[in-house]
């Protein structure tokens, strides 16, 4: 029976997957249930895991269960701990899944649901999961070293410094994008602002409780935290209607930008146990809970996909992200398909906790497949919305005008008929004054989640509660990321500054700390603030920059992986990492090229900058700018973004050069030259992960 099951399982999954794709493909023009999309994705994930990741594990990397992992050789019970495979998978997933897989697919829904789905599925199987898996493997064979250290070891100190600068630049851009998403979601929203504000004192109470009152009782504190959060979400509706409390929590986007900046600077200097750790626990529990609930919700409600498979915006005139499908889809959806950031996580804590080499397949490859599944669900949530609502929320004010009437008119002209009443009613249903121009993914996703979950539980009256729950859930881990990211950025800046002037590199020095924190916060804070006052700025500007940076980091990680494979004398299999590397380089370099060189001011940073600076010099004001100062601001910001794009392109080209150099060296050498920790035998059959 068991044998029969095994023989039939994979063909059955293949047939189910093919059937699901057929249901999507053949129903063009009619509505398709989102459940088919999710089913098709799940079949692809299972089959890819079973066959492709097995091939990589056994033939390409030759994982060896008899070889001791760093978790065993350096076992200390704190950093290096052999951990149960499933527990570590959960931990790894919680560390890699953030706002990225939720935001990118929502923005990419402007091209229709099909291009995004195909890129998510093909991208994760061939590129993203491979990157996570191979980098995890490399780090595991090198005592859990970080990406930067491994690049230094295998490709020399210059390449190592380049990787470090690249990682720092991307960190600052991602923090800016995340900060801006929170600001856009909470602008003029007293309900949302109130619930998010409450999480700060709440986390502090939890932190003090876990530190002094009942040390280590995380479950107690987290349960208390979740209950207070739910109460806060419910109470928020009274705050938003209250004539005294309401105005206290109603802020414009620029005011909130300052709030996030000040928050980031203070939070990253507080002791970790007070705010960062407790909120991290809360957000992890919420993250896992929401992902599971949404998956179940989609199967219960089986909502229809309302967005077209491919929209007219494939031609590059899209209001959400400017540019044609190629290359811009491939940088808009980064996390979920392939994310360079994961290379930093896969070479962080996870490799220090793997019990057996063989587990790396499930944790590295399987963990990334799970994140891709989250991205698919985000895409589904956006595509099940009325497209009119989707565009009303995501198109900038410069395109759809200031009111529900103007937006309805413009969007109806695009071919998605919508009334201003529906736009205002949707805002009312979710308890907001307006849903217009809330680009950034979080609010769109929250409306999608609210509409699906309200059908499962609570009905129409509960929609506003579900919406604010979803906003809170996203804001919670974005603020955690801002806090943790600012700390990480500070360390990186101190590391770099230490080379210039030694005392600035001292981690325990408070003045050095403050200087590095201000540099880091100033870096991302500038973009957040400009995103709220620059009439053409915002998530639409910063997200492509983030996408290019993130995919370039993935390119760097995959270039390292390729070098390592060649140095291990596995030349035969270099296509496993070389194919995704080549695709990423083609996508990011052509996207970067268009952003730098395009003469269309909607796409090219410099074209837009030139247009505005020339007009400003001539004394003319181009709408939506209102003053000459606005015009100069647009020009300056676009020159800046263009320069950063050039820097990213230069970094990745330099890395490609080092890869070729070291690969040729290794090819000429008849012996393997990869710098691995020497082999130590780990008796098979023994479990090192105690306590489970």
């Amino acid at each position, binding site marked *: 029976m068991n044998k029969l099951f095994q023989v039939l399982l994979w063909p059955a999954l293949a047939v189910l997957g093919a059937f699901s794709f057929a249901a999507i493909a053949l129903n063009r023009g009619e509505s398709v249930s989102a459940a088919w999309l999710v089913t098709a994705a799940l079949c692809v994930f299972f089959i890819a895991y079973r066959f492709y990741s097995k091939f990589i594990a056994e033939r390409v990397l030759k994982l060896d269960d008899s070889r001791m992992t760093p978790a065993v050789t350096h*076992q*200390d*019970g*704190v*950093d290096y*701990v052999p*951990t*149960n495979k*499933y*527990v*570590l998978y*959960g*931990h790894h997933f*919680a*560390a890699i*899944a*953030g*706002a*990225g897989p939720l935001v990118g697919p929502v923005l990419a829904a402007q091209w229709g649901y099909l291009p995004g789905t195909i890129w998510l599925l093909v991208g994760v199987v061939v590129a993203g999961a491979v990157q996570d898996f191979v980098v995890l493997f490399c780090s595991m064979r090198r005592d859990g070293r970080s990406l930067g250290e491994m690049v230094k070891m295998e490709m020399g100190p210059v390449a190592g410094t380049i990787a470090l600068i690249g990682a720092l630049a991307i*960190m600052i851009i*991602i923090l800016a*994008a*995340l900060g801006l998403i929170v600001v856009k979601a909470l602008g003029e929203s007293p309900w949302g602002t109130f619930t998010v504000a409450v999480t700060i004192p709440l986390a502090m109470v939890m932190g003090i409780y*876990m530190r002094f009152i009942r*040390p*280590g*009782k*995380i*479950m*107690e504190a987290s*349960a208390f935290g979740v209950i207070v959060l739910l109460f806060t979400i419910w109470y928020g509706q009274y705050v938003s209607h209250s004539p005294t409390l309401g105005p206290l929590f109603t802020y414009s986007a620029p005011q909130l930008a300052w709030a996030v900046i000040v928050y980031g600077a203070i939070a990253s200097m507080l*002791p*970790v*146990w007070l705010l*960062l*750790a407790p909120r*991290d*626990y809360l957000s*992890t*529990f919420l993250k896992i809970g929401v992902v599971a609930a949404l998956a179940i919700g989609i199967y219960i409600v089986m909502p229809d996909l309302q967005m077209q498979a491919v929209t007219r915006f494939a031609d590059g005139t899209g209001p959400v992200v400017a540019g044609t499908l190629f290359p811009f889809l491939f940088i808009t959806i980064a*996390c979920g398909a392939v*994310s360079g*950031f*994961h290379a*930093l*996580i896969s070479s*962080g*804590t996870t490799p220090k906790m793997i019990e057996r080499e063989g587990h790396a397949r499930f944790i590295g490859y399987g963990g990334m497949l799970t994140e891709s599944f989250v991205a698919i669900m985000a895409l589904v949530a956006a595509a099940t919305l009325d497209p009119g609502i989707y565009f009303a929320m995501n198109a900038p004010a410069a395109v759809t005008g200031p009111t529900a009437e103007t937006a309805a008119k413009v969007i109806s002209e695009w071919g998605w008929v919508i009334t201003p009443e529906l736009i205002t009613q949707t805002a009312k249903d979710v308890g907001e004054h307006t849903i217009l121009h809330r680009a950034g993914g979080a609010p769109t996703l929250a409306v999608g989640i609210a509409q699906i979950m309200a059908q499962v539980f609570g009905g129409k009256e509960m929609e506003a509660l579900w919406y604010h729950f979803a906003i809170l859930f996203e804001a919670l881990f974005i603020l*955690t*990321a801002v806090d*943790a*990211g600012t*700390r*990480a950025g500070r*360390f*990186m800046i101190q590391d770099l500054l230490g080379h210039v002037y030694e005392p600035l590199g001292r981690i325990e020095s408070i003045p050095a700390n403050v200087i590095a924190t201000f540099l880091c916060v100033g870096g991302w804070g500038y973009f957040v603030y400009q995103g709220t006052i620059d009439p053409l700025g915002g998530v639409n500007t910063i997200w492509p920059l983030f996408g290019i940076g*993130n995919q370039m980091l993935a390119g760097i990680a995959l270039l390292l992986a390729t070098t390592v494979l060649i140095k291990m004398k596995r030349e035969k299999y270099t296509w496993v990492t070389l194919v995704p590397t080549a695709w990423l380089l083609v996508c990011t370099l052509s996207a970067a090229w268009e952003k730098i060189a395009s003469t269309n001011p909607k796409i090219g940073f410099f074209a837009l900058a030139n247009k505005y600076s020339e007009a400003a010099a001539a004394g003319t004001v181009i709408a939506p700018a209102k003053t000459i100062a606005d015009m100069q601001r647009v020009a300056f910001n676009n020159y800046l973004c263009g320069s950063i794009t050039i820097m990213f392109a230069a970094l990745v080209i330099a890395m490609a050069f080092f890869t070729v150099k070291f690969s040729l060296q290794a090819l000429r050498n008849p012996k393997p030259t990869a710098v691995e920790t020497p082999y130590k035998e780990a008796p098979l059959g023994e479990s090192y992960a*105690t*306590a*489970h």
Partner: protein
Amino acid sequence: MPQLTSWLTGDDKLAAELGGSPDRLQAIANKVVQLRRALKQVIGVPDYEVYLARHKVIHPDVPPMGEAEFFRFAIDRRYGKPGIRCC
């Protein structure tokens, strides 16, 4: 009920006082304790008992940290170094 209390409160002694635990439910109780420990590790909190066991092997002559002290140490260590969070 004691199992539930124990899981929710994280305090085995308190749970025992509240209800006492019948033998046949002991197995379930153990599972629940395991689940709780697994959940803690998922959110990134190292397990105290694993540390104790390890400490006995590496430094048999040094007294180990108490549970509260270990927890403080572990949290500062995990978040005190360049902790990179994903997008």
